[in-house]
């Protein structure tokens, strides 16, 4: 009985949270138009969300690509199909690893920072103070950050994939002796612009949307104490990771399911 009671209570709590999150989302989206006329606000946030995530994405992409080159080579050489290494590296990066891994890194690097920042602004009454100055904190603080995250994500994912493909090329062609021309031409023939590249970008846009939303909402909804903010930050990373992986499955099924 106790189990069902707590289950019911949890369900109710989830619903109210989802409701608050939806209201928050609507406010956040409504604020976008007022942010667009002040690009300075977005630029500032793109700096803290995008530019500061650049390095981790770049290095991770390079290493993931190099590992893919190595592993792919060992498997493909068993079948004498080393020439398709480029296809394997590019397809796995562009379709899956690029959007997913960069979104996970983004949630850890930028998402947690956003949650902590907003949570602390709430704890130190900055949001409340802004409201009393007749400035809507959702429009002034939340919307620019959302837009910056949403726009940065596909750029970071593309960077991740591009760097990864080059990393795979360095290992595959430079160290393991796969033919350079075959690496690129096979990749060229097999990777479809619409099916692979565009779908990858769509994925990263969805992940950027969901991750930034979760991060900002958790910060805004945080209990305004040190412990509350730390919990909210943890929730951001955990919930973002779950959402990214779950949505990735759904999106993949929708995009590549008919093939």
């Amino acid at each position, binding site marked *: 009985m106790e189990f069902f009671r707590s289950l019911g209570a949890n369900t109710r709590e989830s619903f109210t949270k989802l409701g608050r999150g939806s209201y928050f989302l609507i406010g956040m989206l409504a604020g976008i138009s007022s942010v667009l006329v002040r690009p300075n606000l977005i630029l500032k946030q793109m700096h803290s969300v995008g530019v500061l995530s650049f390095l981790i994405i770049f290095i991770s992409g390079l290493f993931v690509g190099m590992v893919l080159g190595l592993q792919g080579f060992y498997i493909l050489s068993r079948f004498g199909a080393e020439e398709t290494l480029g296809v394997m590296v590019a397809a796995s990066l562009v379709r899956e690893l690029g959007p997913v891994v960069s979104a996970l890194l983004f949630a850890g690097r930028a998402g947690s920072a956003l949650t902590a920042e907003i949570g602390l*602004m709430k704890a130190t*009454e900055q949001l409340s103070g802004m409201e009393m100055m007749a400035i809507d904190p959702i429009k002034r603080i939340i919307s620019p950050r959302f837009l910056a995250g949403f726009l940065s994500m596909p750029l970071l994912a593309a960077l991740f994939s591009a760097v990864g493909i080059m990393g795979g090329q360095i290992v595959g062609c430079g160290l393991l002796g796969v033919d350079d021309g075959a690496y690129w031409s096979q990749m060229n023939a097999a990777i479809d612009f619409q099916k692979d590249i565009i779908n990858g970008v769509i994925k990263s846009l969805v992940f950027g949307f969901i991750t930034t939303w979760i991060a900002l909402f958790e910060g805004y909804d945080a209990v305004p104490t040190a412990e509350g903010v730390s919990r909210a930050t943890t929730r951001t990373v955990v919930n973002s990771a779950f959402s990214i992986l779950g949505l990735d499955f759904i999106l993949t099924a929708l995009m590549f399911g008919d093939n």
Partner: protein
Amino acid sequence: MDNRGHHPNQNSLVSVHNLTFSRGEKKIFDNISLEFERGKITAIMGPSGTGKTTLLKLIGGQLFPQNGNIVVNGRDVHHLKRDELYTLRKRMGMLFQSGALLTGMNVYDNVAFPLREHTHLPESMIRSLVLMKLEAVGLRGARDLMPNELSGGMARRVALARAIALDPMMIMYDEPFTGQDPISMGALVLLIKSLNTTLGLTSIIVSHDVYETAAIADYIYVLSEGKVVGQGTPQEIKESSSEWVQQFMNGAADGPVHFHYPAKEEYMDDLLHCDKSLFSRKRLFGEKPAKRRRYS
């Protein structure tokens, strides 16, 4: 109906009528009525936890009461449209207990913030205004500091400069004196008084610092447990016959307000009822000194 504190006044900028507000089971305000006269400094006093900050948030329209209404400058705060409320708030300054400065920008930008958000003034004019406001609080020299480089008193003065940036008709001070050293406290007392007279502001001070508040307030309400227990000019309050007010003003540890938070059981009963294992030999005389230290 409890209408002790209600004297309708044509000269009021803010009127609180029969306000009831509760959080969960706890009634923070139980049908109270207050008047805040134009151009005067009115203080709300009472022990911590009486919801003084909540009252300011209610006046600012950030919280909604269960009952009653609040009229600011002839407008019912809780029946305004969002735009109208925001227009009204531009004319209401509020000084938060923590200052609530934006930590991401320096003192100058903090004071300029409401001007930049609400006006389209050229940067040169904003500069003049900001320097003027900073000069008024004596911190023109600190304009390049970041909020984390300021002392608590300075942060509050910067927040005050920001609150008056848009030339509001009133300012609400939330515990302006708490945690200040005597010098900053004196500076703030002086500032609040002089701003009130020079700018013709209406001030509402929420505080439990008896002497400082009584020194500058024109009228004082004393709240306790959601009710107005005393009101009047500082002189009247000091001479109040109410035991409660006397206890609060003199800071006596015991009186109508007991030193002890209400407990369900008598102290001795409570001690005896508690977990027996707490007093077991092992616990009291056990090998681990760390545990014993707790009871020494």
